[in-house]
């Protein structure tokens, strides 16, 4: 058994690292080959699409064995004992059942694609490569059944749950409508520790099933999202962020920003806000910032005399600053999801529009830091131009990274995916060969594996969220919501206020990527109906989600900070409160002063 497990694990690792390497190389070759007489790998776009599918599902499998799937924080409330055993049994049995059905549903998609007979240039039909979906999901279902308990009888319950779920397929369509209580069972399982993607997928499956639509409706959306051509940018940039997080980049950036800001009163707080913002542009809203930088900057703050509460609050609040700056993933994802044939929301316009609002959020956080910093006694570090130059030189490769990526894209040299692949290639070259923080053979594969598990978790969550959204679209919920909103809300101001409230609450419950996928397609048309500029709406949307991360009871940053620093959530609520207020004011300003977002675009003649 152990050898079998070891072989299994090893295969998973080799597949993931090879997939990631190919997914990086192909777009880089395309981008750099273009000026060299169009040198290219035939059909590279088709390969990258398939590689992303493999990353998502083999990565999802890795996330299952490494327990990396995102869960609701409530799962941690139980101590050891019967309650814990039973909740684990229920949560994982439900997970096994839902994922089992998803495996079946995605097999249907592969069969449907088989009819379309698309071939990869090497002569292998695409559907052969796509069988990774049902196979990986099937293995995941078995893994969840295994994790349902430490004992055999418990694992049998897990397997029984898979069988039971398939038995539901025998229910005649006319009585399927009575199955809605299953959705409650699934929500219950999520509260008790089943991954969030299981809850979303399960609810989508139940909703489609009870109205007699084939459950493959969910897996068709899963496939549609993961096969969408801009999506590979997300795993590639996530991996780049992860490589940075595992290198000494954080120390070098801290040294630089300390040299720049450390001399002024409250300078250390300014440094924390700045360094977190730069870091988050790469890690997106995934919370990696708090995990990677928290342990580094928190002791510096404390040593400088900042109180514990303020320090915790600042680190927690800064964990998502920088979300609006290029090449942040949530911005790219919003552009992908909110763009339709009728109305495109180009990512570059969104980035330009987000510059001033993003800076505003950084500046007000830093300003509050200065106010507190003046009060606490601290020894001032004198300003040293020599140290600024030396530290800038030390961190030059990391400081140049955003410049390099933005330049590649803005100059028209590379597409989004090509720029993302170049970012990963650049990061690996810098950290493995120039700074030599990461050994290319001894440590890089492990770093990439950890990143792959995170990517798998994110991609599966995203794609399943898309399945849930498709139910809403299928049931014409956006149209109904639009009609409702139009009859109950008259002015644009009231609409924006309602939007602020809605996004604040939902942003704290949903993880950022699924929040974008589920909500953006619903909100974009309503925004258009109220004459809100689509680019401005995108900035409002993302800034609001940034605020949602801090919103009790379950904002993601609160949860991450709580586990990183071992502090109870309730104490964090108190510490982030002032930050919640000032960021909230910032978000209101961003919402009601459109010129802040659209002004720069107008100056550049893009509006």
């Amino acid at each position: 058994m152990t050898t079998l497990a070891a072989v299994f694990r090893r295969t998973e690792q080799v597949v993931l690292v090879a997939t990631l390497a190919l997914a990086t190389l192909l777009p880089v070759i395309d981008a750099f080959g273009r000026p060299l007489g169009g040198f290219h790998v035939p059909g590279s776009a088709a390969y990258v699409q398939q590689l992303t599918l493999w990353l998502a599902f083999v990565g999802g499998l890795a996330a299952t064995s490494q327990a990396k799937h995102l869960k609701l924080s409530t799962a941690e409330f139980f101590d050891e004992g019967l309650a814990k055993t039973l909740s684990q049994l229920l949560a994982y049995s439900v997970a096994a059942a839902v994922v089992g059905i998803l495996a079946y549903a995605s097999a249907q998609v592969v069969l449907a694609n088989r009819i379309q007979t698309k071939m990869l240039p090497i002569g292998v039909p695409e559907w052969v490569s796509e069988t990774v979906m049902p196979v990986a999901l099937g293995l995941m279902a078995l893994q969840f059944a295994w994790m349902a308990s430490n004992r055999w009888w418990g694992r049998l319950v897990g397997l029984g749950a898979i069988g039971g779920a398939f038995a539901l397929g025998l229910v005649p369509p006319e009585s399927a409508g009575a199955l809605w209580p299953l959705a409650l069972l699934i929500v219950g399982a999520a509260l008790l520790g089943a991954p969030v993607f299981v809850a979303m997928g399960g609810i989508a499956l139940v909703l489609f099933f009870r109205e007699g639509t084939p459950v493959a409706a969910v897996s068709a959306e899963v496939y549609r999202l993961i096969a969408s051509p801009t999506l590979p940018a997300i795993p590639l940039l996530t991996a780049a962020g992860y490589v940075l997080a595992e290198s000494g980049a954080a120390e070098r950036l801290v040294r630089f920003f300390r040299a720049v800001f450390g001399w002024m009163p409250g300078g250390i707080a300014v440094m924390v806000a700045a360094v977190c913002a730069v870091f988050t542009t790469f890690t997106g809203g995934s919370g990696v910032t708090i995990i990677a930088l928290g342990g580094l900057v928190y002791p510096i703050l404390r040593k400088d005399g900042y109180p514990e509460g303020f320090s915790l609050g600042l680190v927690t609040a800064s964990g998502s600053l920088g979300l609006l700056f290029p090449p942040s993933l949530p911005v790219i994802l919003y552009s992908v999801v909110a763009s339709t044939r009728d109305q495109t929301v180009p990512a570059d316009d969104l980035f330009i529009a987000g510059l001033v609002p993003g800076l505003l959020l950084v500046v007000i956080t830093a300003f509050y830091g200065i106010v507190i910093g003046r009060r606490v006694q601290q020894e001032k570090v004198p300003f040293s131009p020599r140290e600024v130059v030396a530290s800038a030189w030390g961190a030059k490769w990391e400081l140049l990274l955003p410049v390099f990526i933005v330049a590649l894209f803005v100059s028209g040299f590379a597409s989004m995916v090509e720029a993302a692949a170049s970012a990963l290639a650049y990061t690996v070259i810098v950290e493995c060969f120039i700074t030599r923080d990461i050994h290319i053979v001894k440590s890089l594969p492990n770093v990439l594996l950890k990143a792959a598990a995170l990517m798998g978790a994110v991609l599966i969550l995203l794609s399943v969220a898309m399945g849930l959204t498709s139910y809403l679209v299928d049931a014409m919920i956006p149209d109904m919501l639009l009609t409702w909103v139009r009859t109950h809300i008259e002015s644009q101001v009231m609409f924006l206020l309602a939007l602020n409230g809605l996004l604040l609450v939902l942003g704290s419950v949903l993880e950022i990527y699924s929040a974008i996928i589920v909500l953006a397609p619903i909100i974009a048309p309503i925004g258009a109906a109220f004459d809100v500029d689509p680019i401005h709406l995108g900035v409002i949307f993302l800034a609001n989600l940034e605020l949602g991360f801090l919103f009790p009871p379950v904002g993601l940053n609160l949860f991450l900070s709580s586990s990183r620093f071992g502090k109870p959530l309730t104490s964090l609520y108190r510490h982030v409160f002032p930050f919640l207020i000032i960021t909230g004011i910032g978000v209101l300003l961003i919402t009601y002063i459109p010129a802040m977002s659209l002004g720069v675009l107008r100056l550049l003649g893009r509006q």
Partner: protein
Amino acid sequence: KMATLVPDGSSWHQVLKETAAEWNRVSGGKVRVNLYAGGTAGDDPDVVRKMTLGTLNAAVLTSVGVAEIDKSVYAMSIPMAYRDYDEVYYVLEKMRPSLEASMLEKGYVVLNWADGGWVHYFAKRPVTDPDDLRSLKLFSWAGDTDTLEIWRNLRFNPVPLPSTELATALQTGLVEAFGAPPQVAVITRYYENAKNMTDLNWALLLGATVIKKEVWERIPADIRPKLLEVARNAGRKLQAEVRRSGEADVAAMKSKGLNVVPVDAPTRAQWTMLAESTYPQVRGHIVPAAAFDEALRYRDEYRKQQAAHKK
């Protein structure tokens, strides 16, 4: 449940909504259509997949979508093979029975055929002859590897991208030229960053309204002919609408600074030669050989008739 890429609120959408209402009326309320417009159900390949899976029942598809079911339809979109609407529609009338029969074999009933207008080239610099286009970075749809390789073999400079990235790519200069029917260029405003339109009918974008066979057969047999009649009428209405708006669209773009680049007869011949040089690769790879040969045979037949007529 019927899906379409037709933009929400456009005149096409209006015709479709009227058709849906008309179907409901002639069937005495037995047929109810939920219309998902503007690509909310996904791009054409997604829509066809969903019809195969049974989560959608019908769709208004472009030739890309119809070709997902049966590639023969591409015979109607062979570049530079047809001079004008009359030629294409002569061939389509001749080929319709075989096209529809092979769609039926794959499980789809064709309710009507309609086109989206001629694909024209839009570019940042005026494009008169093929060499002008060779010097520009040309948009090529990321999903279509065959076409991409054909462009590359012809020493063009294609950049494969998803259509959702085209707007941005035109702004950054990653793409300098693209092919699209005027109506698409207007709706998407892509032309604002590529203000030179070459006056050349490169290929016709043909589409069809299809319904899954098993869904069609669930509709009572006495109602079906009535529905078909309504659909055919709608098809004709769409057709008239597209041709009327085609001219209006070009005029609208011109008023916003579009430069229409004229192409004289010798240069047109260059384009035709260029397109014909790809036929060996197109035939059998992109268009099934039988359909390809049949289409060109009917076209030559039409041209002969016309020539005889003139004499």
